[in-house]
């Protein structure tokens, strides 16, 4: 995770260069956070842009530089929720959108191979990523957010609690059920640690 304490202080004082540097440091993280959540580039870009515009506008209200990270993820989380609400009004369910034909074929092929029960079958990188994205998309929104923040963004349990404005116990509980669901889903697809290209 990028270290940006001195930049935060300068940015809060209105230093435009510091603000731009902060954006450069964090834009990839926020983009990937939103991308894993939506599995859609446009929506991820939309959320990322809004997050940094809001960051610029409200940075002066940040009381503690140390809480910048969960604060930034809270903004991004709120915009993710907003985007979901916006999409639902359009009667478009982001996680049931039609995948590209190639993606569908990949997923179908892998699932067929898996049903043969061959534990030694190996997965290509792209196919595995597609399945992992799909697995994430099957989680309820709140569990998905917690998993992404913990597994991919490296936030501590306490930071996730601050970002999502819930208790730490709730974070742990959601993580527990999310990992359990994911394990079950991956087992159905016979994706285990043993049969992926993974080196310990």
């Amino acid at each position: 995770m990028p270290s940006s304490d001195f930049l935060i202080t300068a940015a809060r004082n209105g230093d435009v260069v510091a603000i731009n540097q902060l954006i450069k440091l964090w834009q990839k993280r926020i983009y990937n956070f939103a991308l894993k959540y939506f599995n859609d580039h446009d929506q991820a870009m939309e959320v990322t842009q809004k997050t940094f515009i809001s960051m610029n506008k409200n940075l002066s209200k940040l009381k503690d530089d140390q809480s910048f990270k969960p604060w930034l993820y809270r903004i991004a989380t709120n915009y993710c929720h907003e985007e979901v609400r916006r999409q639902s009004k359009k009667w478009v369910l982001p996680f049931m959108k039609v995948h590209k034909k190639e993606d569908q074929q990949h997923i179908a092929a892998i699932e067929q191979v898996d049903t043969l029960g061959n534990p030694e079958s190996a997965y290509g990188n792209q196919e595995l990523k597609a399945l992992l994205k799909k697995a994430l998309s099957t989680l309820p929104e709140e569990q998905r957010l917690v998993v992404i923040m913990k597994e991919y963004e490296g936030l501590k349990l306490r930071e996730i609690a601050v970002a999502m404005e819930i208790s730490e116990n709730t974070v742990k509980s959601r993580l527990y059920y999310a990992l359990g669901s994911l394990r079950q889903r991956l087992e159905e697809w016979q994706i285990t640690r043993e049969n992926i290209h993974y080196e310990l």
Partner: protein
Amino acid sequence: MRNGKSQEKTFIMSFKPTDEALIAYLYGEASAEEMAQIAEYLEAHPKEKERLQALNDTRMVLGQLDDEPLSGDIAIDLPIRGKSEWAYWRPFVAVAASLLLLLTFAWQTNFGLSYTEDGFYMGYQEIDQGLSTDQVTALIQQEKQETIDQFMAYMREEKDTLNQKFDVLQASINEQPQLIYAAEKQALIDDMMGLSNQLSANYRDILRTLVVNFSNNFEAQRIEDLQNIQAAFNQLENATIGNQLDIEDELIRLSDRLDAVIASLNNK
């Protein structure tokens, strides 16, 4: 010792971490004491350990999903901090307010727009269309005639009023000139009498004043003259007495010289 070990065993058996505690242990975010307790518990419960290991394996698999690269920096149009959003919207609000003002003005003044096959019309008050030139001329003539009639009626009314006043004046002059003359004359006489009385009263006052002043002056003068006379008599008296005393002194001296002469004659 046996009791201690069985107590310890009882403790381990009674301690059962919650799912939340297991997650904290899994991510290494439990306290040191909790970590030790859960580790002991898992050692004592292989199935639980296996279940937790399965969750950890899931984490390993999830870790295969890498970040997507971000092609270039995100272009973000940051609004200038300190400048409120109101500054951005102000021109639009100004335009909207101006339009609203124009519409309100037009509505209040009955400004209207109308497009017909004859063309596009706009103007204040209700737009009348379809009057021909003759109709407009007739309207103007009618308006003019009404104005003239009103003026004539007004003039007649004024004339009647003036005639009436002249008649009254003429009648008063013709019918009672003598009375007027007498009344005027009497008034003049009364005024003169009044003036005369006023003057007489004034003259008497003046004379009275003169007499009083003369009397006062005369008395004062008399007193002064008497005082002067008195003063003169006093002076004369003083002078006379003085002379008399001198004479007496001379007589005395003469008497003494005479006595001396007599004496001397006697002696001889």
